[in-house]
């Protein structure tokens, strides 16, 4: 035991020498996060809901189409979720590339004529932004489907009415009745939101989207910390492990000693971000719907769960570095396993976006177990299952690391 403690202390000394590096990383992370937060605030992410910004390309001035688009922006309920911006093709392309638009809609010159005469053979085309490309197309597809249904159902009703007049010998009334019926349908389309009455429940259970992302982003840092933790493994020598074994410090003891030092190394790096986050919450610079006006106290209560998750991620990173032969491969494994697990556990998209089986896989992974633990703590709800899963994962990673170390020692 004394030897293990001695080995651990030796590792701690190494950690102290590396602290300047870790502080450098910490400072860089905080600076990046600060810049990103400033950008998001400047972008207006914190001010209510963001709308889908759609660039409109094509000459719609002085036509019924222009009136239609003006109506969409002033009278229609879709203005609450869509912001239409008229622009040229070049402007739209540049704005799309810069992420300023969700999509660009191109209206061909003969589109309105095709609608009026019921040909519907000329399509409005749309392109989504490169970021979240397929998500952009999915959303735009839904918007396009809504618009298309409203137009074609109205067209069908109007043409049906016209056909009924023609077939019953009242062709003289077609023009006047078409105008009247058209206006009536436009009014009904504009008031279509009245088909539903909305009741808002609030957050009885579960997290707000802001809180969801807060928990995930807070966990993303320790999950990817293995990248900067690489310096801890930089000059590791296989011969040392064999020598220690000969001196009575077995593979598992070596792993535990090194792991605890590595955990301390990671935690030291999180002190500054945690302090700044707590200050941000205390001064209400960061606000979550669940924590409004309560300062940093709930966040501090979250720290034990956060620490458990960090301890498990540290074990995972330790195992990956042990598994990889050399720091180079170790780093790559850290990145891919970290980013992959983060994605599958819904750190980037809400996990509700995923199919059921993918969500089950995500929840089972270490990143998912950690997220469930922190969320449970956030909601002040029992998350024993997640806590047990985190501890089991931690133990599994340490044991696997010990097995790999043992094999390495035996191979010499």
């Amino acid at each position, binding site marked *: 035991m004394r030897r293990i403690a001695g080995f651990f202390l030796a590792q701690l000394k190494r950690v102290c020498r590396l602290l300047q590096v870790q502080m450098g990383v910490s400072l860089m992370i905080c600076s990046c996060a600060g810049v990103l937060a400033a950008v998001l605030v400047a972008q207006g992410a914190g001010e209510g809901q963001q709308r889908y910004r759609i660039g409109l390309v094509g000459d719609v001035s002085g036509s019924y189409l222009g009136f239609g688009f003006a109506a969409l922006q002033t009278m229609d309920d879709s203005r609450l979720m869509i912001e239409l911006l008229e622009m040229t093709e070049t402007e739209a392309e540049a704005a799309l590339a810069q992420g300023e638009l969700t999509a660009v809609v191109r209206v061909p010159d003969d589109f309105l004529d095709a609608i009026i005469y019921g040909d519907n053979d000329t399509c409005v085309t749309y392109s989504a932004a490169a970021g979240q490309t397929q998500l952009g197309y999915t959303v735009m597809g839904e918007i396009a489907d809504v618009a298309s249904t409203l137009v074609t159902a109205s067209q069908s009703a109007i043409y*049906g009415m016209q056909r*009924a007049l023609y077939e019953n010998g009242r062709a003289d009334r077609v023009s006047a009745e078409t105008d009247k019926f058209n206006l009536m349908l436009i009014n009904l389309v504009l008031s279509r939101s009245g088909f539903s009455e909305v009741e808002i429940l609030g957050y009885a259970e579960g997290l707000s989207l802001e809180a969801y992302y807060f928990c995930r982003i807070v966990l993303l840092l320790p999950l990817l910390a293995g990248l900067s933790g690489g310096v801890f493994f930089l000059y590791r020598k296989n011969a040392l492990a064999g020598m220690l074994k000969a001196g009575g410090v077995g593979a598992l003891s070596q792993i535990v000693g090194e792991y605890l030092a590595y955990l301390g190394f990671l935690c030291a790096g999180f002190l500054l971000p945690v302090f700044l986050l707590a200050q941000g919450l205390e001064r209400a610079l960061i606000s979550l719907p669940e924590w409004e006006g309560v300062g940093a106290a709930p966040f501090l209560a979250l720290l034990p769960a956060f620490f458990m998750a960090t301890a498990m991620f540290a074990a995972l990173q330790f195992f990956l570095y042990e598994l990889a032969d050399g720091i180079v491969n170790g780093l790559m494994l850290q990145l891919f396993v970290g980013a992959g697990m983060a994605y599958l556990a819904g750190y980037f998209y809400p996990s509700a976006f995923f199919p059921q089986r993918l969500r089950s896989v995500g929840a089972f992974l270490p990143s998912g177990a950690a997220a469930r633990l922190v969320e449970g703590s956030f909601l002040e709800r029992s998350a024993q299952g997640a806590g047990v899963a985190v501890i089991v994962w931690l133990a599994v990673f340490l044991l696997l690391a010990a097995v790999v170390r043992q094999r390495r020692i035996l191979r010499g």
Partner: protein
Amino acid sequence: MLTKIGNMFVRGWLIQKRLLCKYSFLLLLALPLLFAAGLSRLAKEESGIAAIALYVPKDDATAKQVEERLLGKKSAFRYLSCETGEEAVALVEAGAADAAWLFSEEMEETLRELAEKRRVRPLVKVVERRDSVPLLLARETLSAAVYPAFSYAVYESYVTQDLGLTELTDEMIRQTYESVAVTGSLFAPVYADGSNVETEDVSYVQAPLRGILAIWLVFLGLAAVLSFMQDEERGVYGRLSGVRRFLAFYGVGGVYLLDGTAVLLLCCKLCGVFTDVLREVVCAAVFACCVLAFVNLLRLLCRTPRWIGVILLPLAAAMLALCPIFLDLQKCRAGKRLLPPWYYLQSIHNTRYLYQMAVYTAVLVLIGAVIQRLRKEA
């Protein structure tokens, strides 16, 4: 000349052999492939940007028709059918669904009455935990699903009441309507370069894979840097002068990135985000060159493995935040343009960015050469 080229290939092959002998490097190449294959398989299942619990009364024809309209097409939303309204609301309360749509028990009758009065009144009760833009869009979808039945009822009532064609039977009115009914979509999705989008094949769940792999390739380049630095410390390149060492790095990095690019292309193919062979290969090749020049510059600026270690995490965070993978930030234009994955992700559907990536690569190589030269003089 031929001997020199032959030597180059031999050296390249030796580096390749050295890499392939490391099982963890093979694991590193295999992991993205497994991830892509798994993701592609799992992404085929139903998914959506919001989950909607649906309660539809069983014996109401209009409600069933609206339900069929909602469920019968590929949607951005995931619908959960419920037996009772209470069950649907409970799902929302528990956070298992984002909204519940409770259809009126007498929807058909109410709709007909409203159509006769030319009024729009609630037919569906929507219960939500909190309003959001996706749920606004969902309500638009709901309105659009109700509207065809409503517009038909309005047409029917208009023909009989306003036009006074009372002699027409319901069947005749329907036949007249169906003989002129307009179908099909007025919108078509296209990529920025005008090529068609195959929306059926790729889910948004798979879409970020290309971005993740682009970042992975940058890190593979950084792995090459670390490996090269370690070899330098061991004195492997001790006999090489500044310029030749500069070229040696391009050789080592090139082999790493060659493997990485092959894996990237294969993953895109496996995951279904692959577009056109020529376009993919050219974009990936230019991207690999760009990454090589980028990591070489970082090598020259950081100098030691320890400093490379320091920049890894901030660089990963910057790429995740600024490249259009999960987010598309409107600001930080200059920051975005410093990162090779940004050009690569844009270039797939827009050739202009391919040229910009090539120019950026040339600039990086030039800056690298200048720094190398200055170092030598110092």
